């Protein structure tokens, strides 16, 4: 059974802190790993990592895929209150209709 596990489940930090969110997976025929940010409503896309693109960066956010360890991390530096959200990790696998298996998410709260 395909499985995506995120840790920690929740995290409370203060503005300016750096955080690292973790995602590990056990899926058949891995193809990609995606990170989404979910504030009050719909998840919004952050990054996609594949065998040909194992590191992505956008502003204060960066992510790395470790295919050997079957895991990924999402780093956020100099956190701001606007970073407060649920961060979802999802894994796509070959042979599917672009189906994604999601982890349960990490609830990040950034205090002023």
């Amino acid at each position, binding site marked *: 059974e395909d499985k995506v596990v*995120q840790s920690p489940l929740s995290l409370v930090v203060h503005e300016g802190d750096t955080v690292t969110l973790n995602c590990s997976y056990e899926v058949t025929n891995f193809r990609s790993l995606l990170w989404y940010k979910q504030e009050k409503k*719909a*998840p*919004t896309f952050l990054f*996609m990592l594949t065998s040909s693109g194992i590191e992505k960066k956008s502003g204060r956010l960066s992510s790395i895929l470790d295919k050997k360890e079957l895991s990924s991390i999402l780093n956020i530096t100099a956190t701001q209150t606007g970073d407060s959200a649920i961060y979802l990790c999802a894994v796509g696998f070959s042979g599917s209709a*672009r189906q*994604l298996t*999601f982890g*349960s998410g990490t609830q990040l709260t950034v205090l002023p």
Partner: protein
Amino acid sequence: NAGVTQTPKFRVLKTGQSMTLLCAQDMNHEYMYWYRQDPGMGLRLIHYSVGEGTTAKGEVPDGYNVSRLKKQNFLLGLESAAPSQTSVYFCASSYSGAGVETQYFGPGTRLLVL
């Protein structure tokens, strides 16, 4: 360009009632999906469609039916609602081209079954 829209935004049902959730996308995407999100459970796939007239079961299909009569619309039906179906429902769509995995999500429908 509205992206992915969902109707209604919120609904309260009594046990045994039926309803249909509508998802529409204007991005000409081939693939569409219905998910449910419960606290601490992440997003779980209910049904999906790879094109007009085709549907398939996801991880948690029981108690739901779907139809994709038009490329831009994907309907999710509950024939006899149960309290266990209280959840937030998200629709998503995706381009079918090679190397593109991103799914675009609608704003969600909050459903309460009493």
